[in-house]
């Protein structure tokens, strides 16, 4: 943690805390919402359960992100302590005591897709087009 910092040293604690917002709005590719299953075992006989991604997301919208990060880290003793530095919130609302310490923002990896009906009417009208559909053309 903090490996990228010039002041990094294994004996000093300089890792950043990360706040993740809008975890409810995450996207999964393809059929993942229906196909991906999260396994849990209570420890008792017959205690195994498989929860589908959409079910898990309905129960707790932060869980998929949390599990993805947890899975991506090395499985050592530090993992659970490092996870304590990740705050995930399902929506925009972040507690003030967390928000006042935020000093930077991580840029997105890829642009967020927009929907046609979310773009303002005027901008759609002004967008260049090669041709207009004929009057009698029936859009499916």
């Amino acid at each position, binding site marked *: 943690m903090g490996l990228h*910092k*010039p*002041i990094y*040293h294994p*004996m000093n604690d300089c890792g*950043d805390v990360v706040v993740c*917002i809008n975890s409810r709005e995450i996207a999964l590719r393809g059929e993942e919402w229906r196909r991906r299953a999260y396994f849990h075992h209570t420890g008792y006989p017959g205690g195994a359960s498989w929860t589908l991604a959409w079910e898990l997301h309905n129960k707790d919208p932060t869980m998929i992100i949390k599990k993805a990060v947890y899975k991506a880290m090395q499985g050592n003793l530090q993992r659970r302590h490092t996870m304590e530095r990740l705050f995930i919130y399902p929506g*925009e609302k972040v507690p003030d005591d967390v*928000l006042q310490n*935020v*000093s*930077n*923002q*991580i*840029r*997105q*990896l*890829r*642009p967020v897709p927009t929907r046609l009906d979310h773009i303002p009417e005027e901008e759609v009208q002004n*967008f*260049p087009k090669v041709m207009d559909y004929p009057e009698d053309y029936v859009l499916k």
Partner: protein
Amino acid sequence: MSNSNLFLKSGFIRAPLQNGVGRFVPQLQRIVLKFCKSNGSSRGLRDFIEQDLVDFAKQNPSVVVYLKPRRHRGPVIVAEYLNGDRVWMGMHNKTHSEITKWIEVLRTQQGDIASLRLRKYQYTDYPSVQGPWTPFTFKDPELNTAKLPDPKYGANNRLPMTATEKLRLMFEKQKLNDVNTAE
């Protein structure tokens, strides 16, 4: 860092003393060669004693050289230094030439420099002239007053321009040209 390093003395790397700038003070004070007269593992050390030891003692009058023959024990060299360090070095089955080299190492080093766990691989007396790095150096000053989260700071700015965007710009430019020629 493994467990065996936990009890190792720890410290920082340092430049050698300015020994020899004025006068040279020999750092090695005493060297004890312990060996067996019959065992084969002491063969190299016995060769060294027979051939080179007298020369070594003559060339280094400041070093006290002891020989300690002992039956059926392994060959060992113990060196003691001006700063109180004591280096124990096993010479089991070492050849004559290897022992010559190790004794040269013991003679020239300043105390027990090998048994030190380096806390860092670099050291300076002057950590920084321009001030140490903080998470806020080289950061955009706009961030000081920005209210985060803000799409302006969160948007991706590393992707190349899309073909759609390029076409749109070409169209805008064409429109401007059309207006200009019409006038």
